[in-house]
């Protein structure tokens, strides 16, 4: 067979196996090494809620998709070029995501009667799934790994854990990846506690690579050239890490210590974990006894003058609602990060959705407005977190930053910014006027109240959940209440003066404007580009700010006949727009499956709306 090396523009690889097979690690390593190689990149981990789901079953399949390209990569890709299936269940769960031309690499050892039965196959899985036209490469990965390590002295359990390295080695051959990155990773990971595992892992990795090179079953290999990215220093970053770092950046630019009070919850926990590492930047983390204590300790820290943060996901946000109202009422700066997941209730905790928007906008008692910001990609979480903190501190308001499981766990290469390019953050600290401090006196421009932090002499004052007048004195006066209600709302509305205007991708007027917010950005952009390839004209705008809306929203909307709002919920944002800007003609495209959009389905929806 003639071996060809094909230059591919972009490639989607999906690693799938049991939740204990190490697929998340394998996928991350493949992604990271590709990032270092210089490819455009987007990843999507998709795993079950169980730590070790029933062995060999479809519900227990853990997957990690890596999309690499020699250009910009905006999504993890709908369909894959290579599926690595470590067992029959992984094949079954992912067969529908195979491109027509896809290659399937499977561990033949697991395709025995038992394995097939567990995955619910009755006969030949390839036939049952109707994937006979794909290139199936069945390799006895378990046997070969055991063979590779027969002299290693490691016990069988440890040996079998190295299977993923064999697979990774094969994938590296197929996509011509240099493996130095993985060597370094293995050395770093094991050097302290298990140096005996470095050599065996490297050996299995190399044996996998060489095996793939030798078997002749792989007719073509591919190269994916480095993307022509902007010059500079890059790193790969997940959304949760970027969120944590953006908050640290805001701490530095405001000169205020960062305090994060949080309770562990999927998929937000990694933010708390990341902040807990960076004590050297002054970050204080408090793992609270519950979600309520998470936000309440943060509110206390805000009162005491820190940059206060609490991180959570949907159900946790529900628990924080009352305290969020307290932060609105006391007009203290607070950032609440909600990494949205599929609900309601516990829902599908490891799956992604945009279904918390209504909760964030309306889920509190009383007239309780706050600022809502949404991140649109893993790396953008950095800027979104920074801006959320800046707005909170400068406007004396709680800000909810919405990210999504898809963003939090996903990663992409990031051109490392320099902190000198970020603005200072200047909270409205009370000035020494010589007069009695009036805690709820407002800045005429922003309507933010002044911040006087305990420890400052002469500024002693009380805040609390009860309605007050501008002097900070309790008041149940009807007129005062309405004044304060309106001022708190107007303060949030005036944040629109400082947030960036909407930008339109494509013509600034026309028949159809596609609208998105949050983590759907990459998918919508790709879909819009795909539709344009067929010669059609369509424009796209994406909201990073939900409350308040960018000031030019009506101006942008007014230039289009129809506005198609795409979101991963039943229509929260489109209904907000219908309420605020009822004069425009809205269409909606929604999906609530705990999964990101597919570019293909979005492109279809756009075509239909044209």
């Amino acid at each position, binding site marked *: 067979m003639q071996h060809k090396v094909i230059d591919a523009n972009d490639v989607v690889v999906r690693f799938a196996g049991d939740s204990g097979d190490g697929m998340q690690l394998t996928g991350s390593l493949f992604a*990271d090494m590709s990032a270092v190689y210089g490819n455009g990149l987007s990843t999507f981990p998709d795993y079950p809620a169980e730590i070790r789901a029933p062995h060999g079953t479809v519900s227990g399949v853990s997957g990690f998709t890596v999309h690499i390209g020699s250009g910009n990569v905006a999504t993890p890709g709908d369909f894959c070029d290579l599926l690595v299936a470590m067992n029959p269940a992984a094949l079954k769960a992912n067969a529908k995501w195979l491109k027509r031309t896809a290659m399937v690499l499977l561990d033949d050892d697991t395709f025995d009667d038992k394995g097939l039965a567990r995955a619910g196959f009755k006969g030949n899985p390839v036939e049952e799934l109707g994937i006979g036209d794909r290139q199936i490469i069945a390799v006895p990965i378990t046997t070969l790994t055991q063979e590779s390590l027969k002299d290693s002295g490691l016990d069988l359990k440890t040996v079998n854990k190295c299977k993923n390295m064999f697979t990774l080695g094969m994938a590296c051959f197929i996509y011509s990846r240099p493996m130095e990155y993985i060597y370094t990773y293995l050395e770093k990971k094991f050097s302290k506690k298990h140096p005996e595992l470095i050599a065996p892992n490297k050996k299995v990795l190399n044996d996998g690579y060489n095996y793939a090179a030798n078997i002749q079953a792989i007719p073509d290999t591919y190269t994916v050239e480095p993307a022509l990215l902007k010059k500079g220093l890059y790193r790969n970053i997940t959304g949760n890490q970027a969120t944590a770092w953006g908050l640290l950046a805001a701490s530095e630019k405001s000169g205020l210590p960062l305090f994060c*009070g949080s309770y562990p919850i999927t998929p937000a926990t990694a933010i708390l974990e990341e902040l807990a590492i960076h004590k050297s930047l002054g970050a204080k983390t408090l793992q609270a006894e519950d979600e309520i204590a998470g936000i309440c300790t943060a509110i206390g820290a805000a009162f005491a003058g820190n940059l206060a943060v609490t991180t959570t996901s949907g159900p946790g946000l529900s628990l924080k609602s009352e305290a969020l109202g307290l932060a609105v009422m006391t007009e203290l700066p607070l950032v609440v990060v909600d990494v949205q997941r599929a609900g309601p209730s516990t829902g599908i905790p490891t799956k992604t959705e945009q279904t918390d928007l209504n909760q964030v906008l309306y889920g509190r008692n009383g007239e309780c407005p706050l600022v809502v910001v949404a991140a649109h990609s893993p790396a953008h979480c950095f800027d979104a977190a920074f801006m959320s903190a800046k707005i909170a501190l400068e406007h004396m308001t709680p800000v909810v930053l919405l990210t999504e499981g898809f963003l939090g766990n996903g990663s992409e290469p990031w051109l490392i910014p320099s902190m000198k390019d970020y603005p200072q953050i200047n909270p409205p600290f009370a000035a020494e006027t010589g007069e009695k401090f009036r805690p709820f006196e407002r800045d005429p421009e922003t309507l933010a109240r002044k911040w006087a932090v305990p420890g400052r002499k002469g500024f002693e004052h009380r805040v609390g959940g009860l309605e007050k007048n501008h002097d900070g004195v309790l008041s149940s006066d009807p007129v005062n209440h309405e004044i304060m209600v309106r001022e708190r709302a107007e303060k949030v509305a005036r944040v629109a003066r400082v947030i960036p205007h909407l930008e339109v991708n494509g013509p600034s007027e026309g028949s159809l404007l596609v609208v998105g917010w949050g983590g759907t950005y990459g998918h919508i952009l790709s879909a819009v580009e795909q539709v344009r390839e067929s010669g059609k004209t369509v424009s796209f705008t994406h909201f990073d700010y939900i409350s308040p809306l960018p000031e030019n929203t009506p101006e942008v909307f007014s230039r289009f006949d129809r506005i198609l709002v795409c979101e991963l919920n039943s229509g929260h944002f489109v209904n907000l727009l219908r309420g605020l800007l009822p004069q425009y003609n809205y269409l909606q495209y929604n999906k609530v499956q705990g999964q990101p959009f597919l570019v293909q389905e979005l492109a279809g929806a756009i075509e239909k709306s044209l």
Partner: protein
Amino acid sequence: MSQYTFKDFKSDQEVRWCPGCGDHAVLAAMQKAMPAVSEELGYEKERYVVVSGIGCSSRLPYYMDTYGFHSIHGRATAISTGIKVANPSLTVWQACGDGDALAIGGNHFIHAIRRNVDINIILFNNQIYGLTKGQYSPTSKFGAITKTSPYGTVEHPFNPGSLVLGAKGTFFARSIDIELKLNEEIMVAAARHDGTSVMEMLTNCVIFNDGTHKVITDRAVKEDRTIVLRHGQKMIFGKNRDKGLVLDGMRLKVVTIGENGVTEDDILTHDAHTDNIGIHMMLADMKYPEYPVALGIIRDVKDVTYDDGVRDQVAEVSARSRIHCVDDLLRSGSVWEVK
């Protein structure tokens, strides 16, 4: 002389508790204790923060001319924790009720104690929900007849002292609202204590639970039915100072000095600083009529505090980290250059 007097801690707000409410006396003791605390520990007034939850007693921050935070029901302890961890140089005082701290806020209460955050919690225990007009609370006596228990409660109350000590509290004191001197003494000791100090104040709600503590607080019987514990002093009580506590096997027992050959030497000496929580638990658990109810500082032991731990860890990690600014952080780990 302290640079402050009680007037410095009095705000200009009108005190809105019912006439005769026990909270007035606790507030007065606090306003007197704070100048003494400042004198002893050198705290300027601007370093005081008074935090509360929701309930009658939680109005207290408005009446203190300090920084104050009147928060939401049950959450004062979490807010206090955040304030203290964010800025350990502040001295944090918390007013909360039995329903506030032990029912809706029970979780935060026990966890603050477990962490030993350096905050001072004044627990106003009137055994009733006053602000909602008379429902039973987690400290209402078994069988208490209230608006929500017209036929009597069928649940046991918490003894706040046992709860605090069960969570391995490092400071627990109990007193009666009107005992101004003792309360001032307890508050100063609580300020001196590093860690969570819980001061249970048996307060009287004149409207919804009048006389709930009367059986021990009535002037005529108080000295026979309570015992004021002071570290290093004999556990002697009674109008005639002739009753005392001894250990009888594993249990405490009330004896009379001069009877059955009991002398003062036989009476236990209170050790508030002993690590042995068992004896403190027995003292906190004492109930009338078998025992006198223990007042004063029952436990006051040293232990590491949470806020110090957080602060020290930040300093320690900073000293050995190579990451000192966000630019360092952004460039740490795996990075690559596109040329």
